């Protein structure tokens, strides 16, 4: 019998996973079909956009009628931030202001007027913008999300040696079942060897279960810190590792505090700092 379980530990971890990291417009040069290492590994599958900005002239949509708060789809998505101009016409006698008069969803290419802005409802406007040309995964490039590498395909539309931009998301801390299972084994071994008289591995006291879960979480967080540091330089690995370390220390302190009534007076491990004799 175990004091805790995989599902219990995972339920706790759902609340402590750090957020995914979003990387945008990272320039990479793709030569031949050689792998290029990205600054991160463990990327979120299908989160990437490989693109470039080689458009000489801006696109033009219009006249578009912006009514109320309705979103209007532009001809293109993947707009370049800061490249949108909304005007009444070629003379630019009236140029509206982003975030004040209208908002743009740069990724999807939607635009809508702001009710508090200067664009009258149902006013036809012209929208000029620049957008990225987007390449196709597996046709133009191959991305290995786990390893964080990318390379051109043999018949890629990306010219050999071209520099492109890539967006992607780095997976939040992902804890494997194997890691949790191993942490359970280690934590319960540690607890069982320190149990006070009257308690055994079969004891069902809630305090033992709670303490065991916290100790397992501590071990998992410690291992996640190690994993974060193993990521390649240039990432936020140091910051993430520190967060996991802090979480590990917090769980461990709570674990031993919870387990105290069930352990021998001098347990084998204690979170408290001890002065040298």
């Amino acid at each position, binding site marked *: 019998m175990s004091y805790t379980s995989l599902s219990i530990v995972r339920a706790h971890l759902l609340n402590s996973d750090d957020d995914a990291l979003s990387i945008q417009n990272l320039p990479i040069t793709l030569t031949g079909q050689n792998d290029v290492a990205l600054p991160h590994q463990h990327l979120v599958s299908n989160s990437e956009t490989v693109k470039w900005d080689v458009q000489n002239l801006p696109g033009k949509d219009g006249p578009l009628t912006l009514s109320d708060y309705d979103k209007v789809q532009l001809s293109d998505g993947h707009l370049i931030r*800061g490249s949108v*101009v909304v*005007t009444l016409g*070629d*003379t630019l*006698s009236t*140029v509206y202001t982003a975030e004040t008069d209208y908002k743009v969803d740069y990724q999807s290419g939607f635009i809508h007027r702001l009710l508090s802005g200067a664009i009258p409802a149902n006013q036809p406007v012209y929208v*000029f*913008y620049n957008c990225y040309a987007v390449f196709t995964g597996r046709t133009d490039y191959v991305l290995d999300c786990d390893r964080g590498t990318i390379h051109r395909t043999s018949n890629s539309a990306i010219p050999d040696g071209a520099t492109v931009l890539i967006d992607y998301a780095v997976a939040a801390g992902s804890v494997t079942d194997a890691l949790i299972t191993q942490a359970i084994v280690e934590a319960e071994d540690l607890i069982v060897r320190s149990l006070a008289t009257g308690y055994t591995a079969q004891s069902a006291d809630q305090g033992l279960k709670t303490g065991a879960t916290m100790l397992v979480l501590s071990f998992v967080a410690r291992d996640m810190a190690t994993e974060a540091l193993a990521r390649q330089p240039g990432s936020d690995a140091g910051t993430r590792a520190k967060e996991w370390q802090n979480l590990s220390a917090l769980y461990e302190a709570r674990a031993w505090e919870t387990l105290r009534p069930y352990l021998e007076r001098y347990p084998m491990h204690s979170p408290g700092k001890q002065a040298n004799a």
Partner: protein
Amino acid sequence: MVNNTHAYLMARTPLSTMAFSGAQTNQSVYLHGPGGQNGDGFPLPRRGYVTGLHVWDGTTLRSDSSEIAFNAGDRISVYCQSGGSDFAVKLRVNGTSSAMQVSGVPFNTTLYATVEFMVVRE
């Protein structure tokens, strides 16, 4: 941060001016344009917009502004149209008066008119 699209749009519609002038009596007449001839217009090479008309009679500057669209090959001119007691000075496109004009311009003065326009480079 400079919006490159806006900068491009500004650059592709450069402002230009064309000057017209003439000593007037009280008769309706086209002002003389660049080169000294008067008539119903100078052809423009690209589509664009007339955005301003400014008239100086030696004493008073009168101006009007709006957006009068023209196509490549259209001709612009400035026409002094007598109203009986003074002139209305009008921008004409292909010999037809547009809505761009100044009024109350006195007879018997020498007029200097500047037409402001932009052509669209596409």
